[in-house]
């Protein structure tokens, strides 16, 4: 006020100041509103915003599909934008009332996003256009289905298998063409492939269950367990107990302190210091995508790919499957949703999907695979991944809204076992049953709360 009083020597000046303040406020209001408005070229076409997570060669492959779609018709133009942490941005944008028209996410987000009303069901569109779930390989269509309808369509899928370094097999006196077929063979070969220096430090390992640690929640099903039976949490079922005991057997056999020192030198996955690329680990469980990284970071590596070794109580030819997906966020005008579906349907066509999957060097989620796709694919084991994804041993994460939390708890239990952490209650390292009982208790409480929350929401929606 004193600032103004010193300078406002006349009514005219004060009026000017007031007008300036009003102008300032108006500018602020316009500035704030600018973010709420979609600006589109006035060319009579519908311009769709498509958010994706892929960058580099994966993004370029999708951009080719987007360009094909834009050329294929003259009503809709899709603009693709790629960035990281996309799921959080989609949540924030949708909660803020300004979602993208199409979003490329991952399979685990389908159920939580469907339960929260963040995405629309695609079932009615599929039905209208006569596209049946058997258009896709069963496991990928199943992953996208929740409460009887598909909420997403698969884009690039993944299946996992055992990669082994043939040169390291030769050096260890093993047959380079004969991968382990059972878990016992895996353990025995891993032992032969493990080497120490003169001071007893590990310099090479045959296999390390936690390198990479991406597939840990699948270990239970690999050993014949299931985390969820459709109604109840079953984390401490025998399959998971057996799996965790197996993980711990490596910490005991090779000494966890030596393993820590050895693994402390590993670099990032996408780098030449990746222990598999650097020849520090001879066998890893990995996805179909690994081939493209081998080409980049370990060119010339002589490697083979085989199914996960059979466990005593697990299925034959086990594989963990996942998929990238396309979803249409809720809250858009019907005309935009329809246009978004046009694009999603185009991507799901065989030609577009094979262009995308070839570009990303993955297999296709579609049930039909063209000879051209197989002939042109750079991954020489692509047949194996297709067969595994269609086989009886395929497993995918359960369709439950709190799977991300459950996943983190299973990982925590594996870490307890792996580091031989002491159970304060017994004074001895955690047993698998003890570690899994913690998961069971925590997840039962979380599951109950999740169910209560859904029931309460339904009840509130009913009274509205």
């Amino acid at each position: 006020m004193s600032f103004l009083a010193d300078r406002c020597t006349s009514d005219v000046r004060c009026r000017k100041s007031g007008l300036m303040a009003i102008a300032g406020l108006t500018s602020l209001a316009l500035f704030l509103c600018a973010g709420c408005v979609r600006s589109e070229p006035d060319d009579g076409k519908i311009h769709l915003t498509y958010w994706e997570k892929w960058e580099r060669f994966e993004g370029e492959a999708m951009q080719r599909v987007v360009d094909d779609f834009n050329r294929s018709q003259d009503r809709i133009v899709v603009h693709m934008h790629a960035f990281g942490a996309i799921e959080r941005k989609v949540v924030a944008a949708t909660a803020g009332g300004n979602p993208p028209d199409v979003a490329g996410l991952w399979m685990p987000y389908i159920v939580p996003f469907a339960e929260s009303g963040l995405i629309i069901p695609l079932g009615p569109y599929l039905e209208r256009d006569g596209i049946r779930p058997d258009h896709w390989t069963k496991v990928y269509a199943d992953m996208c289905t929740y409460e009887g309808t598909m909420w997403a369509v698969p884009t690039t899928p993944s299946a996992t298998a055992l990669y082994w370094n043939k040169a390291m097999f030769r050096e260890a006196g093993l047959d380079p063409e004969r991968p382990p077929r059972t878990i016992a063979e895996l353990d025995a070969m891993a032992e032969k492939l493990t080497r120490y220096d003169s001071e007893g430090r590990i310099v090479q390992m045959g296999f390390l269950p936690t390198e990479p640690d991406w597939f840990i929640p699948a270990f239970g099903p690999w050993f014949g367990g299931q985390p969820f039976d459709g109604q109840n949490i079953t984390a401490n079922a025998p399959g998971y107990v057996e799996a965790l005991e197996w993980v711990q057997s490596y910490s005991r056999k090779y000494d966890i302190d030596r393993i820590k020192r050895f693994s402390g030198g590993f670099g990032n996955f996408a780098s030449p210091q990746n222990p598999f690329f650097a020849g520090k680990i001879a066998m890893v469980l990995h996805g179909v995508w690994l081939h493209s990284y081998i080409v980049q970071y370990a060119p010339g590596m002589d490697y083979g790919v085989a199914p996960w070794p059979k466990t005593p109580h697990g299925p034959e030819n086990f594989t963990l499957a996942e998929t990238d997906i396309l979803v249409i966020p809720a809250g858009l005008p019907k005309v935009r949703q329809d246009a978004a579906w046009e694009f999603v349907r185009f991507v799901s066509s065989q030609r577009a999907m094979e262009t995308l999957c070839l570009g990303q060097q993955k297999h296709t989620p579609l049930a039909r695979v063209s000879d051209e796709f197989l002939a042109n694919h750079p991954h020489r084991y692509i047949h194996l991944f297709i067969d595994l994804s269609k086989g009886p041993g395929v497993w995918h994460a359960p369709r439950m809204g709190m799977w991300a939390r459950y996943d983190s708890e299973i990982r925590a239990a594996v870490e307890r076992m792996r580091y031989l952490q002491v159970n304060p209650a017994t004074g001895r390292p955690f047993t698998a049953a003890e570690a899994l009982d913690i998961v069971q208790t925590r997840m039962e409480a979380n599951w109950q709360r999740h169910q209560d929350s859904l029931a309460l929401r339904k009840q509130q929606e009913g009274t509205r």
Partner: protein
Amino acid sequence: MTRLDRRHLRNGLLFAGPWLLGLGAFVAFPILRSLYLSFCDYSTLQPPMWIGLQNYRDLLKDEVFFKSLSNTFIFAGLALPASILTALFLALLLNSGVRGLPIFRTIFYLPCLVPAVASALLWLWVFNGQYGILSHALGTVLEPLNGFVNSTLAGIGSGTRVHLAPPVWLSDPRWSKPALAIMSVWGTGGTMIVFLAGLQNVPTELYEAAEIDGAGWWRRLYHVTLPCLSPVIYFTVIMGLIGVMQFFTAAYIIGGGPMGGTAGMPARSTLFYTLYLWAQATEWLQMGYACAMAWILFVITLILTLVAHGTAQRRVTYLG
């Protein structure tokens, strides 16, 4: 109030209006809203549902919540004293009339300008268990030490042998928090500058009087420098305490696996409070639960600040 006064008031309010609006919309409203949401089941995508104290009751039964809290306290106990003592030590060195003061000041301050993510990625390599410079340096010290101890043990006829090896830092749950505390010391240049400014404000006549009374370097430090610097120390302790309770970025990069994240690896040893809060809010869409956690953190920080304030009240000396 005259007509002119009323105009002044109106214009003043109009000028202050945008700021007040911003404060209300972007600060006051979210704070109060988060308090309301802490009593709700809220996923950000649907309207919040009032559930009373359920979030707070669940938090009291949540073992991971207490694990994240204890990780944060342990880290705070390591990082805060280490950072402040290092900053004070460097400031005292620089204040001792060293030549090339601006160069040293710049060198020590430089790490503060490195983005947090870049510095975390850099420290990943420093702490690398096999190739890390820190393990290598410790190894060169420990190797002769092992030799000396073992030869001494052999000399006295003992069959015992020792093999001290550098820690594997980020691959070992016992060493991951100390590693992050060491890393936090690297960015202490900002605090050092504050201390240096405080030291340059200590009246020289106090040092002269102390010297005349026969006080040596240590007594001058203890009886003149530290009391005069006590308001600055008090300020940095409070700010450091608030900062360390919200430690996030480096832990997200270093303990989050190859893509960063809230895993708190290894074995949840770096799962700090804010990481768990972030996971609840953004990964598991439990925004109500996360809001309850945020308010508990606020209360804890407030209590710690009040304790620090009460303890410091009797020891802080304000000159003039």
